[in-house]
């Protein structure tokens, strides 16, 4: 009985797939949502090349929810999970054969659960130079994003520009009442020049960032110290405790070079170099800068891709390298409510190297991509010496399928599996001289540093074209599960409905 069910199910799925493969014509959804576009991420960040990325226009109005829950926080600063609601609009409009405009506006609001060791928003960007306490708790947040761009072709040249703006605040409504208000503006401009079957692109980017960060206590008996963290469980003791008002000022520049084939096949390559600085300043002491984080990143990829005869195929490789240097300003003798900087010491160093190889194969209605890579990360605090290093190997398979493309209701199914395994990890810490709470925090990081992670995710999207209109409705649902070798796990779910036009 079971065998016959399995046979019928397999036959139905095969019939659907065959029907799709036989009859599919690229709808806007297929073109914009295809896994093929993951090979073109770098290209999409040059506004000149982005103007030629898609033939069709697609606009989407989305209303959705996104949630994640971990049985124990993988990263304590990120909390054990979140539940966010989102409303947004995303559009790519082809105005003519040569010109395209695109834009995005969204509002996200929600709660982050059980955040610890972080009283500053944007942890991933500013770590380790954040304000933190041992208590933590749930935080609420809201984020507005706006982006818009324009690109056009002028003979052999393509020119384009775009702007992205983010305004975000994260806050807590009980002690310790952290608040981080972020403004983040990025301007990008690019050009491309056609040489034979290739477009050679150059894009430059400038970013300005500011966060106003503070922590308040309404209950006078419950005041606890806020630490000015300086990395790997160390803190700037002189300004820790009751110095709870900060500015994080930053920004930087990036340059990106691309070589992409504008025909159906060819090699593609890109190189990106960027440098950003983030300065932490004490608001109560004439904006005295106490630390500066410099982040340098280089990314390079090289691949070959072909899209002809109804088949997609690509092989690609990439290398990422990042270096972060943290400078601490040594405060001198207080004079008139401010501290002069008498020296600057580079105390914190972070290095990342990630190399990967991958391949993609597919037809018009399905794609399968496999990536394998090697990643090594090291963090060091100079004195007293603290060091954490780890090396991981990872593999990822992503399969995507577009079903029933000629029917009123079309489906997109995406399944992903990823595994990362720790090959080597070393930790050097002066545990004997550390505060017990800091020791617990570092031991937690150490446990997850040595862990293996396995993730399975599935994502289903259904599109319905409303008859006699250019509008369509869609529903999008995704689920993911991550198992960690330390015994904890994460479940994620997202649900969205929307209007396409």
């Amino acid at each position, binding site marked *: 009985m079971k065998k016959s069910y399995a046979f019928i199910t397999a036959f139905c799925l095969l019939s659907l797939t065959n029907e799709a493969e036989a009859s599919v014509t690229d709808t806007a959804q297929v073109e914009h949502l295809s896994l093929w576009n993951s090979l073109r991420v770098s290209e999409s960040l040059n506004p000149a090349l982005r103007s030629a990325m898609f033939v069709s226009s697609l606009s989407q109005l989305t209303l959705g929810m996104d949630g994640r829950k971990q049985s124990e926080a993988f990263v304590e600063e990120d909390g054990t999970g979140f539940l966010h609601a989102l409303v947004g609009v995303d559009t790519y409009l082809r105005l003519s054969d040569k010109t395209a405009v695109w834009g995005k506006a969204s509002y996200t609001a929600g709660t982050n659960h059980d955040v610890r060791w972080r009283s500053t928003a944007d942890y991933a960007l500013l770590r380790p130079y954040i304000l933190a306490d041992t208590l933590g708790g749930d935080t609420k947040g809201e984020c507005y994003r706006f982006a818009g761009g324009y690109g056009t072709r002028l003979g052999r040249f393509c020119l384009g520009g775009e702007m992205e703006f983010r305004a975000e605040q994260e806050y807590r409504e009980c002690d310790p009442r952290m608040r981080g208000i972020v403004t983040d503006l990025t301007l990008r401009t690019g050009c491309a020049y056609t040489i034979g079957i290739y477009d050679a692109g150059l894009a430059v980017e400038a970013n300005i960032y500011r966060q106003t960060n503070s922590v308040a206590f309404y209950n006078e008996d419950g005041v606890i110290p806020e630490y000015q963290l300086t990395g790997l469980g160390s803190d*700037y*003791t002189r300004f820790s405790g009751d110095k709870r008002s900060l500015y994080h000022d930053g920004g930087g520049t990036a340059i990106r070079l691309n070589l992409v084939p504008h025909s159906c096949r060819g090699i593609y390559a890109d190189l990106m170099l960027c440098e950003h600085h983030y300065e932490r300043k004490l608001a109560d002491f004439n904006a005295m800068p106490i630390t500066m984080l410099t982040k340098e990143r280089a990314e390079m990829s090289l691949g070959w891709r072909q899209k002809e005869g109804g088949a997609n195929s690509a092989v690609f490789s990439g290398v990422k390298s990042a270096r972060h240097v943290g400078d*601490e300003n040594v405060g001198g003798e207080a004079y008139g409510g401010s501290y002069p900087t*008498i*020296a*600057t010491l*580079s105390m914190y160093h972070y290095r990342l190297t990630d190399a990967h190889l991958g391949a993609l194969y597919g037809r018009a209605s399905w794609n399968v991509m496999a990536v394998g890579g090697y990643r090594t990360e090291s963090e060091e605090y100079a004195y007293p010496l603290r060091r954490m290093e780890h090396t991981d190997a990872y593999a990822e398979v992503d399969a995507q399928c577009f079903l029933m493309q000629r029917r009123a209701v079309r489906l997109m199914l995406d399944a992903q599996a990823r595994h990362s395994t720790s090959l080597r990890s070393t930790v050097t810490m002066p545990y004997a001289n550390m505060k017990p709470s800091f020791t617990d925090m570092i031991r937690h990081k150490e446990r997850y540093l040595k862990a293996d992670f396995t993730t399975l995710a599935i994502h289903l999207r259904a599109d319905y074209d409303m008859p006699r209109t250019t509008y369509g409705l869609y529903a999008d649902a995704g689920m993911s599960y991550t198992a960690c070798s330390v015994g904890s796990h994460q479940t994620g779910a997202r649900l969205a409905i929307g209007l396409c036009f």
Partner: protein
Amino acid sequence: MNHKILITLIVALASLMVSCHKEENDIFSTAYITLRTPDSASITNIQAQAVVVNVNTRQATTSSQFRDSRLEVELLRGAYSVTIEGVVTVSDGMGNERIRQFRAQSDYVDLSHKTANHAELNILYLD
């Protein structure tokens, strides 16, 4: 010609970006703290312990490595408070020697330079 200009521009921009940040990895320095007597007497012998506390990190370093009246200690560059307590043998220049208890203290000493971190502390006799 245009290509050459473009390539030069790209290389120049890339070089500018990767060469912007200068690291300061000389984080340690040798500090020389000299004790000064309030009178014209000279220190002939000293037995004392110095506690040098980094004002910014609150890390304390103790040392009793005195040579004559000078303490030499390897420290993280920064601002320090220094407390020295012990006994000294002082000579008045007429051949008279006396052993005296003393204390020397300063809440702020700048020892942030890469070289030539010299500081002088006045001693206070406790007997």
